[in-house]
């Protein structure tokens, strides 16, 4: 019983350590998005959340003892064919024997890798999916930061509670009395923009 338990713990902490850290990073990001008051801190938390999910997906594609998912020279049907073609070309020009023509035909057909061969490569499918996710992530971050700059120009702050207070006061028609002159200027600018 104890030995089995120890095995489980070992599997969790040594072989599946990636997944533990993935959960920790996910929760750090989620905490920052909910509890942090500063808008830029919230966005950093969002990015950490995104990369944690990408880490999980990339971890799914890992195989023990596997290399990167690019054809090794001996497995690549096209690379082998091209190499062979270059070898045979002068021969064909000199004397087109039937044997060399047969060999030529052989290398034209693309053959699928066997299971034994595919086991030597990491699974590329999660990588391709996550490539899209990274690009979407940076686009999201760019738009969000642009909105943060716009909020700063309108309210003079990027702290969530102060922005909420300013919005509440504005909606109740009470002119904001306290606050830096910058924020007052920003608020009046915002009102001007609304009138126009």
């Amino acid at each position, binding site marked *: 019983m104890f030995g089995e338990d120890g095995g489980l713990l070992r599997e969790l902490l*040594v072989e599946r*350590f*990636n997944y533990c*850290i993935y959960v*920790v*990073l996910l929760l*750090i*990001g989620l905490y*920052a998005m909910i509890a*942090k*008051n*500063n808008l*830029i*801190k919230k*966005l*950093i*938390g969002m*990015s*950490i959340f995104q*990369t944690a999910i*990408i*880490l999980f997906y*990339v*971890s799914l*594609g*890992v195989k023990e003892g*596997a*290399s*990167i*998912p*690019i054809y090794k020279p001996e497995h690549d049907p096209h690379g082998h064919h091209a190499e062979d073609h270059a070898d045979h070309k002068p021969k064909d020009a000199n004397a087109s024997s039937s044997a060399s023509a047969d060999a030529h035909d052989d290398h034209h057909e693309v053959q699928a890798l066997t299971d034994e061969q595919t086991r030597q490569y*990491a699974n590329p499918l*999660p*990588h*391709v999916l*996550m*490539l899209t996710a*990274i*690009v979407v*992530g*940076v686009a999201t*971050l*760019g738009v969000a*930061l642009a909105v*943060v*700059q716009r909020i*700063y120009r309108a309210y003079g*702050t*990027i*702290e969530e509670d102060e922005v909420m207070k300013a919005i509440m006061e504005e909606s109740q028609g009470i002119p904001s009395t306290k606050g830096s002159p910058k924020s007052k200027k920003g608020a009046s600018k915002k009102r001007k923009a609304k009138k126009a």
Partner: protein
Amino acid sequence: MSGLELFNVFILVFLVVAAVIALRVKDLLIASVVFGIYSFLMCLLWAEMGAVDVAFTEAAVGAGVSAVFLIATVFNVKRDSSD
């Protein structure tokens, strides 16, 4: 534990440390730079895990463009944060 596994664990621990520092410092410029370090560590980890295409993209986009966006925004707004 092989050398590669040790490298993996080392980077994973530093990832959590970098994430926590990026969220705890009051200076937003430091937070942005530490976030760039976090992205670069993540990129190293993916290269080690065999996802070289994802690692390239993360190095260019995560550690490069995202960090530049964050720093540019920090210079356009206040540098200090309440939390």
